[in-house]
Each structure stands twice: as C-alpha cells, then as structure tokens.
C-alpha cells in the first residue's frame, strides 16, 4: 500500500489504540485540530476525546502527566509539537522518566512514548528549526528512535510501546510528505541500525531527516564510480555501533551526516567510537557534515547554507576518498 510517512504514523497510532485499551494519545491539538502535522487527523472521531486528549499549552504539565499516567498503568503516547518546545518539558523527561527506575532501585518503570517533530529546512527560523535529539540520546534510561523511512514510521511505534521504559521518537518534519509502498505486517527492530544502500568503498552514516539527502548523494557518487554504503542509525540510544563498525571494516572510509550542530553532536559520538574501536581499520580520517554553528536563519539561501546538503556531503566524501 502506497502511503505517506504521516499516514504511516497515523496508522501505527490507530493500531496501538485498537490493540490496547491502556494506550492514549495526548498533546497540543492532537484532537479536534488533527495534530499540527496532521498525524492524528480523524482519530478523535474514532476513539473519542478521552483517548485522543487535547492538552493546554503546558509541555511540562502534560509530559509530566504522561509520566504519571505511565507509572499508574497506562501506555501514553505523548506528542510534543516539536523538539523546540520539548525544552519546556526537559525536567520531566530527563529528571524523572529517564531516572526513575534506577533511582528507585528498580521499583518503577515508565512506559511512556514521547513523539516530537524535529529539524529545519522549511524556513521556520531559529526557534522552530532545532535538531536537539542528541540531548535525549545523551541520557541513560531513554531510548531514542529516529524513523527515517515510511516503513519505520509505520512499524516503530509498536515495539516502542512494548518497551517498558521511556522512548523518545523524533520525526523530522521534512519527512511527513514522503511516500513509499509499505507491505502489511511490516516490523522494525528498534535495537539495530539499518543498511539503506549497500556499498563497498565508503560508509555514509546518518539518521532521520538527513537520510534522503545522503541517499541522493550516494546516487550521484555512484554515477562517478564511487560505491557508498548508507547506514541509517535509526536508534540514537542505545547506539548500535556494531553495524557501523561492520560497515567501515569493509569500506575503511567514513563520513557522518547529522543535522545537529557539530560541537557535541551525535556525529561526534559516532566518530569518537570509531576512533576508540576502529581507528586502524580506517584508510583516511573520518569527516562529519553537520549544521553550521549558528541559529538557523529564516532566509532560504542562508538556511540552505547552514544545513547539510547533497553538495556538502559529496564534498566531504571527496576529501575522504582522495
């Protein structure tokens, strides 16, 4: 069935609501409005306002309520409109959801799924263009997922809800309109990274909204005779480094593409792990393509210049392969 990423998310949420009466969706404008990215459109008609629960603009309050509901036996899916606004709820995510099990000596699990949109590229200016998923990937106790394909958007929610611990699902807003054929009954392994394009000369490691750019770059490189493998990390925490290591032990060259700012980025973590565990497998220093260290500007030409692009990815590959 050919569906959009947005449809895939909606179908996954609908399946979860049908499968388990403890599941509810809550967040700003998830109900009557249909979700700010239209992910939950129509669900309130089918499931009612108690299970598709509109909240006031109280990120700290409703994320904390989701945490409490999870501790109390529900399986809440909490939608925060974007990662930018999730900063208002950081306390509940980082200081409670992530810590509670360990801090209580194993007495409480927090089976909450927190969904949020992320990323730039739509001229929404600095306060609506962050890629802060790396902040969550820094915190023990959380699982951080970045569905980058329609298939993963369709299949990730079920295992995320089955996880007894808090899961943060970060959806790049530029992906909601992509389309693909997704077979029925598709599943997703939320422990493992995915090889999106096999290749032999070069490993391109990325995740989330950068995946389409990296695949486009790989196609152009193939036309020049450079055979690049594309890895989608898919799980930012706990990171599946084995899949990365296996790839670059074949290719011996690596570029990491990450829309986050370079300093303290997830790409930095990946490169550090490569340095610790695979340094002597490399034939060239690794390179990172990240966002420029600047608030993302509104003007399109400046925004384009600030973000990883197909051209800058290809340029980095040429440096590594030269």
């Amino acid at each position, binding site marked *: 069935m050919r569906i959009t990423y947005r449809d895939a998310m909606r179908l996954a949420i609908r399946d979860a609501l049908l499968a388990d009466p*403890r599941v*509810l969706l809550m967040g700003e404008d998830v109900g009557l409005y249909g979700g700010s990215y239209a992910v939950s459109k129509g669900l309130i008609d089918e499931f009612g306002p*108690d299970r598709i629960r509109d*909240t*006031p603009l*109280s990120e*700290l*309050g*409703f*994320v*904390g*309520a*989701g*945490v*409490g*509901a*999870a*501790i*109390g*036996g*529900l399986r*809440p899916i909490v939608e925060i409109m974007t990662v930018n606004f999730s900063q208002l709820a950081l*306390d*509940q995510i980082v*200081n*409670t959801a992530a810590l*509670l*099990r*360990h*801090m*209580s*000596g*194993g*007495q*409480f*699990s927090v*089976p909450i799924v927190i969904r949020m949109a992320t990323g730039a590229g739509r001229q929404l200016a600095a306060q609506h263009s962050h890629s802060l998923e790396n902040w969550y990937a820094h915190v*023990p*106790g959380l*699982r951080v997922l970045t569905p980058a394909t329609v298939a993963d958007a369709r299949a990730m929610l079920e295992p995320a809800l089955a996880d*007894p*611990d808090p899961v943060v699902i970060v959806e790049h807003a530029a992906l909601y309109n992509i389309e693909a054929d997704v077979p029925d009954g598709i599943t997703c392994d939320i422990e493992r990274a995915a090889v999106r394009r096999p290749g032999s000369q070069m490993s391109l490691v990325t995740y989330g909204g950068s995946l389409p750019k990296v695949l486009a770059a790989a196609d152009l490189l193939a036309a020049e005779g450079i055979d690049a493998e594309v890895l989608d990390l898919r799980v930012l925490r706990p990171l599946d480094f084995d899949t990365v290591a296996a790839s670059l032990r074949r290719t011996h060259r690596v570029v990491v593409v990450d829309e986050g700012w370079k300093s303290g980025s997830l790409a930095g973590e990946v490169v550090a792990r490569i340095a610790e565990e695979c340094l002597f497998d490399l034939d060239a220093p690794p390179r990172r393509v990240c966002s420029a260290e600047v608030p993302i500007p509104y003007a399109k030409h400046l925004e384009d210049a600030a973000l990883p692009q197909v051209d800058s990815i290809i340029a980095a590959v040429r440096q590594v392969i030269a």
Partner: protein
Amino acid sequence: MTTDRVRLLADMYRIRRMEETCAELYGLQKIRGFLHLYIGEEACAVGALHALTDDDNILATYREHGHALVRGVPMNSIMAEMYGKASGCSRGRGGSMHLFDATRRFYGGTAIVGSGLPQAVGLALADTILARHGITVCFFGDGAVAEGAFHESLNLASLWHLPVLFVIENNLYAMGTALARAQAQTDLASKAAGYDMSSSVADGMDVEAVHAAVADAGGRVRGGWGPHLLELRTYRFRAHSMFDAELYRDRAEVDGWKRRDPITSYSARLVADGVLDQAGVDGLDRAARDEVAEAVEFAEAAPWEPVADLLTDVHTARGMS
C-alpha cells in the same frame, strides 16, 4: 478514637527521633549528601497520612522521611537507604531525597521542586481511566507554588476533573527565601480560585486539625468533586539542609514557632484529655528511640549493593515489566 490519637502522637515521635538520629549520623558521616529534616513539621505528614487509605497514591518532596515512615515504609529500610545500603527502600541508589516504595504507592522522594505535581495529575488520570478508586495526594512546599509546574498541574487537574489532593506544606521559606519575598500573593490557598478549584487552610502544627482537613478535603476529592488545594501552615525548626547558616531568619521567630512544637503540644493535650498520662507519653518516646536504635543497627549491618550491579535497572530487564 482514643487509639488513633495515641497513634498520631506515636508517629510524630517516630519521625522526630529518627531524624534527630539522622542528624547525628550525618555528623558522623554515616549519612552523606543532602539531608533535609522535617523536624517541626511532623503534624502535617502524620495528620494527613492517617486520613488516607492504602489505595491512595502519595507523592512527596526531598523532605519526605516522615511521609515515607507514616506511609508504612519500615524504619529499617529508610535508615538503610540513608546509609546507601542495598537493603534500603531504594536499594541505596536514592538516599535521603529519593525514598520510594511501590508496594505502598509511595512515589517518592523527588528533589526537583514542583516535579511531583504533573505526575500526580497523570497518576490520577490513570486511576480514573482504569476505574480505580484511590485518590492521589501530592505534598510540596511553598517554594513549589512559584514553579510553572504548580500552575500547569492545577489547571490540568481541574480541567480534567481529576481526583488529586494538592497539599502545600507552607513552612514560610523556600530554602532561605521568605514567602513574602517570593510571592506577590502570599495567601497560597487563594491561588486555587484561578483554576476553579476548591481550597482550604489548616494549622500544620496541630495534628488533629491536619487530620480533619485532609479527611474533609480527601472526602471531597474521593466523592468526585474534582481536585482540591489544601494549605498547611507549618514551620521548619532546623536548617533547610545540613549546610545552612540560617542567615535569613531571626532566632526569635524560630523560638516562637518552637513554642508551638506539634509533639509537646499534642502530648500535653492528650494528657489533659486523660488519654495518656506522662508515663504513657514517655513510653511512646522510648518506643520510638528503641525503634531508631534498631534501625541504625540494621543499617550498619546491611550489605552494600555490589558494584557489578551498577548498571542494572537503567532499563527494565526484559520479561520483568
């Protein structure tokens, strides 16, 4: 009712003697980290928790030793937690500020001011959806009233008509900042009106007044009338924590409140009412001291969690949820 009144007094003694010993153990470096004593405020936890049921959810703050104890967490496991031992109620991972007991619906023990309130809303939402009958009681201090979490949570609880009893333990200071230096409106109970919520105020130095107020407010909440905000007016006799020169308040003010000590005043009341004689009061005190001595012995002998277990329970072991 006579037995219940004795139990109220007995539990206040248990908290007082336990915490006095904790302070000594802190000096001996047996207890480390932060230690926030509840001494002076015992009537709040004792009066409140005796008016609640086992089905109710309890959330407290980092000044929660008394709440945990009265809720039924054994003193041995509280003291072992203070020591950081594996027999502690949080296996030594939480310490003084993070006492937890899932079997008693005691949800901690949080050290982020105000963070319990949104969780209380969620616990009450879960109870409502899952058709359970308990209410959720969330204790916090006057300092938390300045947090956004307070206002967001009162609004949510009222908007969704959830069974939450919010209890402010107003001890007049947010750490070292006096209420009047932090709040434009110092009548804290009045803030409920902004959320179309009922509220009440009780004397937090009078254990029976607290009991009556919580029984009344809890009954309202239990009866489906929506959330309620109860302000208990109390006072902390000791420093905010163990590192506090108390530069922010007058000795005379502290002494004035100490003359209203909830334990001595209630002891006198029970003697005057003929419920206990002085020997009976002394017996409660001695029993509390004996229980504390045993708890210290237990904590001293308790094992440490093996370092090999450091990483367990960062995530739930599969098959254990």
